[in-house]
């Protein structure tokens, strides 16, 4: 048996709005039914999801998903299927974390007797007030400079990590979907190793829990009151969004990154080495994902690297995968990314809140994060099915 897939040509504008909107609606109805099946009343479901749209926590996911959505759209538009944002974020966290813990500041043991002295010095923060071996973190540079360095190195690390599959694709023609995906798990492993051994902290907690010390809070990003989003998150999201739009609109690299997605042969024939643009697309994409990783690390609630005990819930919160949905719903149009980032962020937040509520009512029902991903997953599936049905006509042929 063979499947024969023929791409359809189509010009409808309706399609670009219709497919995403339909996917969201059908996906939500589907998840409502799934929840109903496992005993969650529909009104609870609706209230839970709706609350996501007003939750102050949503903004944080929104900012991260804008960065990641823009990042993925950059590569998808070049027909490079980067599903490795997770790994690229992880490297952003590691590099940003390294700068925060060892370059911009440093933690050290002090004698218990001097702890009070240290604590009163500017730029010094008590990380661990243990009566036997207290640890303090000492700033080594201006914290704004430190934060900038964290972002820059995080971006660089994410970009370099993304170059691995890019080089394999450009020069050895190895499919990037598989490599980027595998590299995510490699990154998780390395992350755990680095957090548990290489960068293991000095404090008692770090010794106990396989993690680094907590970073000096002067190096963490600045929360906007009443939310979990930081000023830096929002600024980065805005800057990346605008920068990429300008790049597409006004630079030759932007133009070529667009064209490589529709006709790489044209680039080669006008004398542009299209392989370098594969590298560039992935590098830029990885850089933005890396920045999102730094954001996660530098969030005041985090500030440390910790061994991943369960690959299902990495510190990236799976946002690198969820952003694929954002990019797809935007139909690979960067300008639409913020809109769908907001919707997906709200759904994600709403589902998490719903999960908590369900756990509270009937603790036995379904625990863990499982329920959180049902709405997002349903929308993703509906979207893929709709795209396949509208983009291709598929025929099965039996020999």
């Amino acid at each position: 048996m063979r499947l024969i897939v023929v791409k359809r040509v189509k010009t409808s504008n309706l399609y670009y709005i219709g497919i995403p909107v339909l996917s969201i609606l059908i996906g939500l109805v589907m998840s409502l039914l799934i929840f109903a099946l496992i005993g969650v009343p529909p009104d609870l479901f609706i209230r839970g999801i709706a609350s996501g749209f007003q939750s102050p926590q949503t903004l944080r996911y929104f900012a991260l998903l804008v960065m990641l959505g823009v990042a993925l759209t950059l590569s998808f538009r070049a027909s490079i299927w980067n599903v490795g944002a997770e790994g690229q974020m992880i490297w952003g966290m590691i590099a940003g974390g390294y700068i925060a813990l060892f370059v911009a500041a440093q933690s050290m043991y002090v004698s218990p007797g001097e702890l009070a002295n240290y604590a009163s010095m500017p730029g010094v923060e008590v990380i661990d007030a243990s009566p036997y071996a207290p640890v303090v973190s000492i700033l080594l540079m201006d914290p704004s400079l430190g934060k900038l360095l964290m972002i820059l190195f995080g971006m660089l690390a994410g970009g370099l990590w993304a170059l691995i599959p890019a080089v394999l694709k450009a020069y050895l023609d190895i499919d990037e979907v598989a490599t980027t995906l595998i590299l995510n798990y490699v990154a998780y492993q390395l992350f755990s190793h680095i957090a548990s051994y290489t960068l293991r902290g000095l404090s008692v907690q770090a010794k106990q829990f396989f993690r680094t010390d907590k970073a000096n809070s002067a190096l963490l990003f600045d929360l906007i009151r009443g939310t979990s989003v930081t000023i830096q998150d929002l600024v980065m999201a805005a800057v990346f969004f605008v920068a990429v739009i300008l790049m597409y609109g006004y630079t030759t690299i932007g133009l070529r990154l667009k064209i490589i997605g529709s006709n790489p042969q044209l680039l080669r024939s006008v004398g542009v080495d299209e392989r370098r643009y594969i590298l560039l697309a992935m590098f830029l994409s990885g850089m933005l994902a890396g920045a999102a990783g730094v954001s996660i690390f530098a969030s005041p609630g985090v500030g440390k690297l910790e061994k991943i005990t369960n690959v299902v819930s990495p510190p990236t919160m799976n946002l690198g995968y969820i952003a694929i949905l954002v990019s797809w719903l935007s139909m690979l149009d960067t300008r639409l990314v913020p809109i769908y980032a907001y919707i997906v962020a709200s759904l994600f937040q709403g589902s998490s809140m719903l999960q908590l509520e369900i756990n509270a009512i009937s603790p036995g029902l379904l625990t863990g994060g499982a329920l959180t991903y049902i709405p997002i997953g349903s929308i993703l599936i509906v979207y893929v099915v709709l795209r396949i049905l509208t983009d291709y006509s598929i025929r099965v042929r039996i020999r």
Partner: protein
Amino acid sequence: MKTQSLFSSKEELSFLRPIISVRNLWKRFPGVEALKNVSLDIFSGEIHAILGENGAGKSTLLKILYGIYVPDKGDLFFEDRKVVITSPRDAVKNGLVLVSQVPQLIDSLTVAENLSLSLRQFGYMSNVKKVSKFLSEKEKEYGVRIDPDVEVWKLSYTQKQLVEILRALLLDAKVIAFDEATTLLPQTEKEKLYEFMKTFKDKGGTVLLVTHKIPEAMEVSDRVTVLRKGEVIGTVKTSETTIDQIRYMMFGERLTQLNSYGYGKLSSWEGSETLTVRNLWVKSDYGVYAVRGVSFSVRKGEILGVAGVAGNGQLELIQALAGLRRVERGIIKLRINGSEINVTNKGSTLIRRLGIGYIPDEPVKKGVSLDNTIEENVAVHPKLSKFLISWRNVKSLASNLVREFSIVTPSTSAKAKVLSGGNLMKVLVARELTVSKLALVAYNPTRGLDEVSAHYVRRLIVNKAVNEGMCAVIASEDLDEIMEMSDVIVVMNSGSIVGVFKSGASREEIERVMVS
């Protein structure tokens, strides 16, 4: 499946019965009225040519008949029945099958599989065995031989076109419509296709032939309809008209451009060779040597024409010169301002940076990006935009090109995919001629262009050679084109140069070497 009905003998009477009637057809695209009140009768059993300049609306008309586009207004009648055609399936049911320039086949399947697949797509029962049997029948009737069990990717372009035609026969077509399906075929293969059309007609079939080549229409058609700017200018019997009359119908005032042209004198550039090729060996896609030890040199301001029957290494030679195909042995050298540069296997980036224009063999696949605008298709060339693109400059350049090459488009910010085939080619040619300073390397530079545009392009190339000292290597399947432009003509046969002629050599002489 019934296949017999069509091939029963038909009486002459039916000749005057319209098999397809088009009445007051209108079709508007954003920014352009592609068809304006078009009415037309296609008689049963005739070969009806539809002629028109680039962008006249020929393809649009066929696409409406074939259900790809839906008209804004107007009626279609098939055998006096009013029909509404909204998909190719409807068209096929009514007996019309379209054969386009680009074969719509799946490369990894065999011929028989492809055919049986499309049969089922159109709602016929079929299996591979039946198809094979049918093919051997047709082989006897038409003398076309295609192995049903060979995979499509192994076929030549002509063979693929034949498979398309066989598909039409399998689908029991009463009318086969060709949309410039002959443009890319080498001359000898074209003859075969004409033969086929005539046989098909003798068996009672009807042919709708879209082309902008007047001689082609004169050779095979019974009647000719001319479209211009979406309107029917007229329908005439081929036997009662002349090339000049049709030409006037097609181009109107634009024709004066054709007459006033005349080329400048031959190049008077004294100087050394700009491009030198020594003992070049290049492999084809299949890994066999397609170019075998070719050597030549082209001086400043000189045009070298590469003639030959298609498939004798011209394509690979041109691609190697453009830096897009590996040179196995031999060297390619360029001379710029007195210094020599070896560009062998240095890649297209260097070659293009030195000021060489390139017109590739598959323009749509390699020369333009359909999803991008005309402006973007211009700006993509490294010579035509800097890191920061000045869209003002690009726009004004693009508008100039649109005007100079009379590209029919609503605006320079229209996507390339809305352009007609010929106008798309013009965008590519215009861009490449703009960047050709040192040299132009081209394969079929005027394919798909109407006569006036083709003439304009040829004259531009010659003028650039004469006035600016650009040199050119031009391979073309159209011998007239080569003879018209070249200072020197080389003939390729089986990968080698088998003859060298100065301009003014006799056509017979050249043709003799081509096929020997």
